């Protein structure tokens, strides 16, 4: 009888290990190496954004799916709002977010082999806003590499704020001539950034503000520096000065 009980416990432990392992399994057939993306989608319940003295809220409940553009990688966001990809080929890739099958936003990410991308987005109505994005390298870079990989004081994979003038492009992606940077323009991916206008256009809505962006616009960009070789920033917020 004791042997039977012991066997039951062994079987239970094996089952727990097997099923526990499923928790971190990605349905996208992860390959060794590559890039890991961990994400959280906010907005399934009562959401609130608190900045200074402002507070807005949104409530919706749509099934959100995330795809890696140009690949077969796709994953449904869990009821808790989490999703995870493993084994994404390194380099620049685009995460496409869909709500009930309809595309609501894209986020361009550049990450090296072995790095881990952590992204938090918020879904409001049928739009997507990037709240935070970080790129963490699994292997720490040496000082030489880190110091060479700096754009206006910002390091790759970390938060950066830039001031400058729009040289070309659209509100989805534009080249920014950054103040204090003598070399090439910075490519700003702003497809899922929140837009704000100040100055004379302070009362303009986010949509109107986004549409008002043109060559020569003075902007303040807040986002994450994705790479320094080609100076690429994924914007979280674009403040149009004029």
């Amino acid at each position, binding site marked *: 009888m004791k042997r039977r*009980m012991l066997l039951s416990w062994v079987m239970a432990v094996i089952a727990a290990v097997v099923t*526990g392992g499923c928790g971190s399994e990605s349905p996208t057939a992860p390959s060794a190496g590559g890039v890991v993306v961990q994400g959280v989608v906010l907005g*399934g319940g009562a959401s609130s954004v608190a900045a200074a003295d402002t507070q807005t809220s949104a409530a919706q409940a749509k099934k959100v799916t995330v795809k890696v553009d140009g690949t077969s990688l796709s994953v449904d*966001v869990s*009821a*808790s*709002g989490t999703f995870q990809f493993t084994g994404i080929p390194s380099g620049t890739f685009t995460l496409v977010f869909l709500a009930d099958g309809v595309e609501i936003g894209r986020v361009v990410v550049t990450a090296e082999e072995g790095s881990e991308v952590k992204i938090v987005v918020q879904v409001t109505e049928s739009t997507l806003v990037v709240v935070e994005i970080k790129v963490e390298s699994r292997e720490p870079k040496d000082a030489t590499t880190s110091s060479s990989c700096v754009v206006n004081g910002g390091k790759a994979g970390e938060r950066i704020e830039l001031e400058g003038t729009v040289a070309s492009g659209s509100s989805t992606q534009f080249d920014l001539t950054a103040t204090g940077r003598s070399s090439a323009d910075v490519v700003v991916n702003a497809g899922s950034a929140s837009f704000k206008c100040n100055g004379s256009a302070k009362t303009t809505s986010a949509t109107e503000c986004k549409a008002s962006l043109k060559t020569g616009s003075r902007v303040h960009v807040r986002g994450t520096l994705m790479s320094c070789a080609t100076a690429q920033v994924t914007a979280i917020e674009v403040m149009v000065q004029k």
Partner: protein
Amino acid sequence: MRAGPVLALAATLGLAASLAGAAPRGAAPATSNAPGLFAGYSYAEAGDASLHGLGLSGSYPLGVTLSLVLDLSGHDGSFAGADFGQLGLMAGARWTPSSGRFRPFAEGLLGGVRTSVSVDGGDVRVSDADTDWGLALGGGLDYGLNERWALRALFHLRFLHGEGAWDTDPRLAVGAVFRLGR
């Protein structure tokens, strides 16, 4: 947890059934089916996030082998730079087929889990709270130390629906049980 929920459920129910069958039938019962209180460490997954916290539950006998169960759990953790907090409240029935020192049980609960997520994005703090409804199926084992106290290990699979998706999240808890009455 995205894969293997059927396997996990089968394993859980199989565990409870096999332990029930393995329990020494001839052994004198340590206690009758008495009301009990449980408190202990609890681990749960919320989608891809791993959370840790506390589990509390109370049971009231409805018969020799059947009990009414109220289960409360609180967990927190982080994932992808966001902070998670989760509070679960479920109620249901527990079947305890034997009454020896080893008391395996199987249970099914219905209820809800409220998950709060917040992220600090510099000068902006974004938070989100959502209640998912569903059921928990699982079982466990009580090891009686004496007539009052027992050690418990339990496993639940929580099937929760929210945001257009079903999550199958495992939960594990270990702790102590205090039995009231005789």
